[in-house]
């Protein structure tokens, strides 16, 4: 059952991602990107990280993608449909991807097998009792407090910058 869900979500993510880059219509691209993000959220759920899954959906799908669509919807679609979506080097890119794929397959086939499951699972029952949210909170506000604050300042700077760039007169 676990395996089934894992492969299902993976397939969804891969197919959606592929469609996202190949779709000509920008809005369709965005829809497929949403599909990808939902697939990732599904994977989180499958891993037992409900909180992360919920936040993933709220932030990425409900927030960021909605804003994406907000902008894209105003774009003149007729024009974009006429333009080529891939630049001239797409053949080169394809060759690169093919090489990478061969390499991966080779490593999987010839390698010494997948890494052992990490031993952190021993701590899992205790964590489960605490609940996901507490875990995330503990990690975020104790172990990684400084990076967290730095990240938030970074976001603030980015936001101020965007406002300054967009507004002629504040």
């Amino acid at each position, binding site marked *: 059952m676990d395996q089934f869900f894992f492969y299902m979500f993976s397939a969804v993510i891969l197919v959606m991602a592929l469609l996202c880059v190949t779709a000509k219509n920008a809005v369709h691209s965005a829809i497929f990107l949403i599909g990808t993000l939902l697939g990732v959220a599904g994977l989180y759920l499958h891993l037992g990280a409900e909180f992360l899954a919920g936040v993933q959906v709220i932030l990425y799908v409900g927030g960021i993608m909605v804003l994406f669509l907000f902008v894209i919807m105003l*774009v003149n679609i007729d024009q974009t449909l006429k333009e080529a979506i891939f630049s001239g080097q797409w053949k080169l890119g394809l060759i690169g991807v093919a090489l990478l794929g061969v390499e991966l397959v080779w490593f999987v086939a010839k390698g010494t097998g997948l890494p052992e499951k990490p031993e952190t699972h021993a701590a899992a029952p205790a964590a489960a009792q605490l609940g996901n949210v507490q875990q995330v909170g503990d990690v975020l506000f104790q172990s990684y407090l400084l990076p967290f604050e730095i990240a938030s300042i970074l976001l603030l700077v980015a936001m101020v910058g965007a406002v300054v760039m967009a507004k002629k007169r504040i």
Partner: protein
Amino acid sequence: MTEAETVYRPHPEDHTFLDSNEIVINMGPQHPSTHGVLRVVLRLDGEKIIGSECVIGYLHRGVEKIAENRTYVQFNPYVDRMDYAAAVSNSLGYCEAIEKIMSVVAPPRAQYVRVILTELNRIASHLLWLGTHALDIGALTPLFYCFREREEILKIFENYCGARLTTHSFRIGGLQYETYDGFEKQVNVFCDDFLHKVDEYETLLTGNRIWLQRTKGIGVISAEDCIQYGVTGPVLRGSGVKWDIRKAMPYCCYPDFEFDIPTGQNGDTFDRYIVRMEEMRQAVRIIKQAVAKIPDGPIMAKIPKVIKPPVGEIYHSIEAPKGELGYLVVSDNSTQPYRVRVRPPSFVNLSALDIMIRGHLVADVVAVIGTIDIVLGEVDR
């Protein structure tokens, strides 16, 4: 393709990849809040209005041309159908214009009944305006309260002359119908009830913060602009000009009554709203005085069976609920007018729409259209 479309269609070369600046939308002729078949071509930046143009004529019936092919008496029912929300006022203006050209004066009793009905009609017209205006701004309920009161007025009309909307209540030279039994009582009962109802509307709207936000500072037009555009009626008074034809150029028996002319200061939607609300109260005041003083006597002046006014032309205007309603009648001493030209208040007021909505949002367009109080039957004629 009409002119408006050619004017506001963006140039094809302006269509760049990320052209998200301008949208042209057609508001109307089938838009729910253009009060009929008005079409406004709006040029939008996001939701902000950069320009607008009214396209009218969807309800054109050639009323003025019809007048040239009807006798004076026969044309009377047609004027009801211009501003169908205020048919009685239209009829009053037309009848008085013809009486003026014939040098006939309606008897006093007829004049008093005319004033009562016209002021009732003013209330009915303002109620229709209030209901739809509130509906445009999103208040669903006042419409039904307004229509309930309007219904009472229409019942009075129905009792008096047998029709509710396009009443054909007055005739050249006076009245066709004598008042019915209990006319005064019914009018008085309505007036007493109605003042409480106006307070109720004000509770629902005037104090409401959303209403204030939606109307204050919206669709501002200065007194100078009003005069430049020829705007009349509550829109003009909302901008602070104390101009009311009932006082400025009295007609009928209006000099007999005491009433105030409410005015606003800022010329925004809220002021026009307040002016109309106060006008309803003043109308009640006039009606009460008229009912108290109504004289006995004949209701029809002595006029010939076949009306053939002497050669000449006359302009007579009255204060209709929406503004100055004028009739220019040219007579060539035949049974049919040579030319009738109507100055409809809605049409003239509508011309100021563009300067009132520029820079506002789409939501304000409906508020402003509502506050001008147009009736498309009158705009297009």
